[in-house]
């Protein structure tokens, strides 16, 4: 996104996009098509309720609970539903990272993403750079995130071209023995679940 699109908070200096979006909302509201209170509620939900913490919780559970882990790979939609994750999770598939295989998810055609589970995608996921390069040079993309993998690890890229949604289940890192589920969840970042970073028990990402 270019800088001039940003809202710098100057209430008197409405950007072209603010004006354009407000006009459209006015029209749709006056014509009775949308309820502004419903729009507020959608924004509130994505800002505070649906987010990567839902996925992190499930992965931490899969690391400590073998039965849940099996359920996750057998039917991720049902596994997430069993945790009471808000938002329907139809056609969700969990991808298992192993020492031999690392998974990455992309949508080259638009921005398909497991939003019902992980919230809205970050700007980089929707960027031309990520959408164009991930299918041809995934190791180069991983380097943009500071992620290096062994040269013989298979890199498996999933282009989300249908309504199937993919979530990467990273390997539990060494040095986390005895950690509680809650503590484990803190090291599972959104980017780990897309496949561009690895859980880092010594860091915050």
């Amino acid at each position: 996104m270019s800088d001039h699109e940003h809202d710098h908070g100057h209430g008197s200096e409405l950007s072209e996009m603010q004006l354009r979006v407000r006009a459209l909302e006015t029209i749709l509201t006056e014509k009775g098509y949308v309820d502004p209170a419903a729009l507020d509620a959608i924004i509130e939900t994505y800002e505070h309720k649906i987010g990567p913490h839902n996925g992190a919780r499930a992965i931490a559970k899969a690391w400590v609970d073998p039965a849940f882990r099996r359920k996750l790979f057998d039917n991720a939609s049902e596994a997430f539903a069993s945790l009471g994750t808000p938002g329907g999770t139809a056609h969700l598939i969990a991808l298992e990272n192993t020492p031999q295989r690392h998974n990455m998810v992309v949508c080259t055609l638009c921005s398909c993403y497991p939003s019902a589970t992980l919230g809205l995608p970050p700007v980089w996921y929707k960027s031309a750079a990520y959408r164009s390069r991930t299918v041809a040079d995934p190791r180069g993309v991983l380097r943009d995130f500071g992620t290096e993998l062994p040269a013989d690890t298979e890199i498996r890229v999933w282009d989300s071209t249908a309504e199937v949604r993919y979530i990467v289940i990273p390997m539990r890192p060494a040095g986390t023995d005895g950690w509680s589920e809650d503590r484990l969840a803190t090291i599972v970042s959104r980017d780990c679940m897309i496949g561009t970073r690895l859980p880092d028990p010594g860091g915050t990402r």
Partner: protein
Amino acid sequence: MNGVHDMGGMDGFGTVKPEENEPVFHAEWEGRALAMNRAMGFTGAWNGDISRYAKEIIRPDEYLGSSYYKRWIIGLEWMVVDNGLVGTDELAAGHALRPGEPLKRKLTPDQLDTALSRGSYDRPARAPAAFKIGDRVRMRNVHPKGHTRLPRYVRGHVGVIERVHGCHVFPDVHASPSREEDPQWLYTVAFEGRELWGDAADPTLRISVDAWEPYLERP
């Protein structure tokens, strides 16, 4: 259509730039843009495949020059006009000049869980699947002028069926004027990196797309 949205394998867009502590929205209007798209989608005036097509037909220079949510607004403006819900005179005036058209549903805050839940795209099969796991398939070399989910970088290439997902709503027809669901078998087809990118490709790379049966042929 062979649009600029079909980005797989293109060069020149530079490095990926992750943003630390990224906010959900970078401006207040982005949240309104997302919410209006969701609320209008809920009315049933169009479907998700039409919504994708609305962005694909943005002129390539405008597509590349616009931020993500700006594209959503350009697409939404096109859809409300194309569906006869808003006049271009109203867009120019910035307010309604006529009463609204009747719509099937209107989103209210109490229906939010339904509105944000993902429905199923699985439909009953009308015929047995033509392919099974392990089959080699070639992606058809076709260039539809309308909406398609068959990326250019796999057309003409041979892959292997890795998963069978059942019969799903077929976007190419769902986004067409008929808006019919025309369910088709959906598969995950995996390719070796070298099949798509030549001998210089990373030998450890495998890529998959999800592809409906009409995209596939026997090699």
